[in-house]
């Protein structure tokens, strides 16, 4: 087993364990911090497959943006010391059956399929390539989704402001 295999399996174990903790922890702030570790592990995997820009985006947007946003909203809406009550045991059992069934089905398909892995070519995801593809309008360019995403982000930003705005009571200034 080579070095990168050992690193990969270690990161994978970390990701699985922290995802499991994030969905089962009964303290809500801890769940958010466990999510941060799972997302950090994902960024490490992106580094391992040489997608440095994607790894940086993952760290900035997820770890720096979404997790901080989640922690802020936890601080605004919950008591941190409070433990969440356990879900009903029938719910745990039924959901576990559903999850295990889905996992078994997927694993059955994955392990029985032979993927024809290609040896990696020398093409690197450099900033130049990414920029040219992201703004390219010929074949293999992504300028349309890029523009659509920019409109979506603008709409989401305005929508978030409108939804979270406090409606002042009449005459109460």
């Amino acid at each position, binding site marked *: 087993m080579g070095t990168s295999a050992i690193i990969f399996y270690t990161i994978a174990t970390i990701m699985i364990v922290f995802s499991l903790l994030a969905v089962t922890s009964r303290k*809500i702030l801890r769940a958010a911090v466990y999510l941060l570790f799972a997302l950090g592990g994902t960024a490490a995997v992106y580094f391992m497959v040489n997608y440095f820009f994607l790894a940086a985006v993952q760290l900035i947007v997820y770890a720096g943006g979404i997790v901080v946003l989640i922690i802020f909203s936890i601080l605004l*809406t919950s008591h941190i010391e409070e433990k969440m009550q356990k879900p009903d045991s029938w719910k745990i059992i039924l959901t576990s059956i559903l999850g295990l069934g889905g996992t078994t089905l997927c694993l059955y398909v994955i392990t029985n399929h032979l993927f024809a892995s290609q040896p990696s070519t020398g093409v690197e995801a450099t900033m130049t390539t990414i920029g040219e593809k992201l703004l390219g309008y010929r074949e293999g360019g992504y300028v349309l*989704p890029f523009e659509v995403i920019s409109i979506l982000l603008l709409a989401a930003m305005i929508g978030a402001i409108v939804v979270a705005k406090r409606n002042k009571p009449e005459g109460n200034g």
Partner: protein
Amino acid sequence: MVEQVPLNHALIITTLMFFIGVYGFLTRKNLITMLISVEIMLNAVNLNFVFFDHYLFPGKLEGHFFSLFIIAIAAAEAAVAIAIFINLYRNIRSIDVEQVDKMKY
């Protein structure tokens, strides 16, 4: 990494992560923890895109750009969701799904 880790193992890991997210989404009652579960699922899908791209179609960068767009959409979704949670908390003093039976405000 292609020579040392088979694609099947990578896909097994993302499958496990995805169904952990499904489990959390169905058992949790607090809206913020449900959002955390959704993020875990999205993350597993991103990893899947990157693995398929890296192993089966190297050099084409298609999975890379799909992951990039999914991350952008996830950010927009989280921002709107948290705005809704905060407004809900302001109105009914709770973000428990069982107590949220109207969203008319």
